[in-house]
């Protein structure tokens, strides 16, 4: 969770997912994942098909597997939780080799694993095809609160600046012989974090003054409003429609 955030996931490309307008893609992603989560536990065939669909979507972006492999490590907690479920869940016991496991737990483990991985694969497919600035424009188009859009746009703009500042501070520490091992490193690292806060805060003040002197009125102007054709909406909602069908069919 704390590592691997240094680079944006986005990769340029010309696949179908790259070409869809970002607001359409965001709505498509949200509704797809929500529909997947609504599939009842135990419908493993349906969940397997949806997992395959998410994997196919990710593959269709044409992004090198090496680029996204590191991000798939975030799925580790899902796997650990799924492995633990058969042993901690309540319900009728069944024998699995020499072990006694809860059969509800085994079903739930497969369900959690499939849903969690489907969610991660589709979120990665969104992230690799959507530049961060497009996410800002998409949320603005979808009428997210103006302040949230503004904060997000600053975050996207200054993320690299501040993480590079953090990297420079680390180089400075290490070139002075600092080796972070054990609890004794904590005061040094905390002081660096404190310094980073002061620098970020002061940068915020400077940026604000610079923006005011250029006529900033408190709102982000929408320079080129996003548009989407009905066909693009229909395309983006296909995965969600499939997942919803699976969810309804599994209940019948």
């Amino acid at each position, binding site marked *: 969770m704390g590592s691997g955030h240094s680079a944006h996931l986005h990769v340029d490309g010309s696949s179908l997912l790259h070409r869809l307008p970002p607001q359409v893609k965001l709505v498509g992603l949200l509704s797809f994942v929500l529909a997947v989560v609504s599939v009842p536990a135990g419908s493993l065939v349906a969940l397997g098909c949806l997992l395959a669909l998410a994997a196919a979507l990710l593959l269709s972006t044409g992004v090198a597997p090496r680029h996204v492999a590191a991000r798939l490590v975030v799925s580790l907690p899902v796997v650990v939780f799924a492995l633990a*479920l058969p042993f901690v869940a309540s319900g009728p016991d069944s024998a699995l080799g020499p072990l006694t496991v809860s059969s509800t737990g085994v079903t739930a483990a497969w369900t959690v694993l499939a849903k969690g991985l489907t969610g991660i694969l589709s979120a990665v497919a*969104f992230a690799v095809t959507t530049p961060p600035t497009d996410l800002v424009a998409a949320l603005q188009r979808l009428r997210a609160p103006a302040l949230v859009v503004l904060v997000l746009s600053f975050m996207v703009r200054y993320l690299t600046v501040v993480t590079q500042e953090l990297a420079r501070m680390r180089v400075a520490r290490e070139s002075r012989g600092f080796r972070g091992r054990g609890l004794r490193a904590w005061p040094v690292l905390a002081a660096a974090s404190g310094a980073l806060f002061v620098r970020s805060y002061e940068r915020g003040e400077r940026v604000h003054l610079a923006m005011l002197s250029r006529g900033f009125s408190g709102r982000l102007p929408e320079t080129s409003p996003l548009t989407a054709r009905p066909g693009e909406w229909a395309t983006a909602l296909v995965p969600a429609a499939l997942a919803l069908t699976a969810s309804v069919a599994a209940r019948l």
Partner: protein
Amino acid sequence: MHVPDGFLDAPTSVATAVLAAGALAVCLRGARRELDDRVAPLAGLVAVFVFAAQMVTFPVGAGTSGHLLGGALAAVLVGPRTATVCLTVVVAVQALLFADGGVSALGTNVLLLAVVGPWAGYAVFAGARAVLPSRPASVPLAAATGAWASVVVAALVFVGLYAVGGAAPVPLDALVAAMGTWHLVIGLGEAGITFLVVSTLVAARPDLVHGARPVLGHAKLVVAQGGRL
């Protein structure tokens, strides 16, 4: 710490999203009071700071390390309303641009990490600050207490949500024991880091620490006759 997709069922995910959106709406209105008109650029940079501070790994020993969650720290530094706005954006960026935390669980994660974390932390911080002597040196101690409480309370709220809409029936007392014990320890790390960061800031730039304002007192403006001080 982020809840992935499928841990909680769809109705619970939607309900937490509605709760989170309501809390965010209230905080958006209040954030302007905490940072006046500088709110947008400053809140943006504070959000980036929280994101970057979560990347600093603190070695624990035996090859393991931990990192800051930052909910209580942000609440102490810029006030709980602004902290909620900043953490919401951090959680959203992590889910949508880094695939960290489930997209369907976005509402749950915002509720736990951006609402419950900062507010529980700030409430305990404010309580501890009222009890401790009214000195700047009390602020880091109160912040550490708040940070510890924010982690434990967020973990217990997650257990509550899991009891309502969890993926599999797990005996509640076992879950409380496991999550509680584990997060008591994680909370100690969070408290340690928060204590050290807030001490640094109270010593160097107390004017930037929102939670230190009541104990700073007011420096009197002295105008000396004839230009001599």
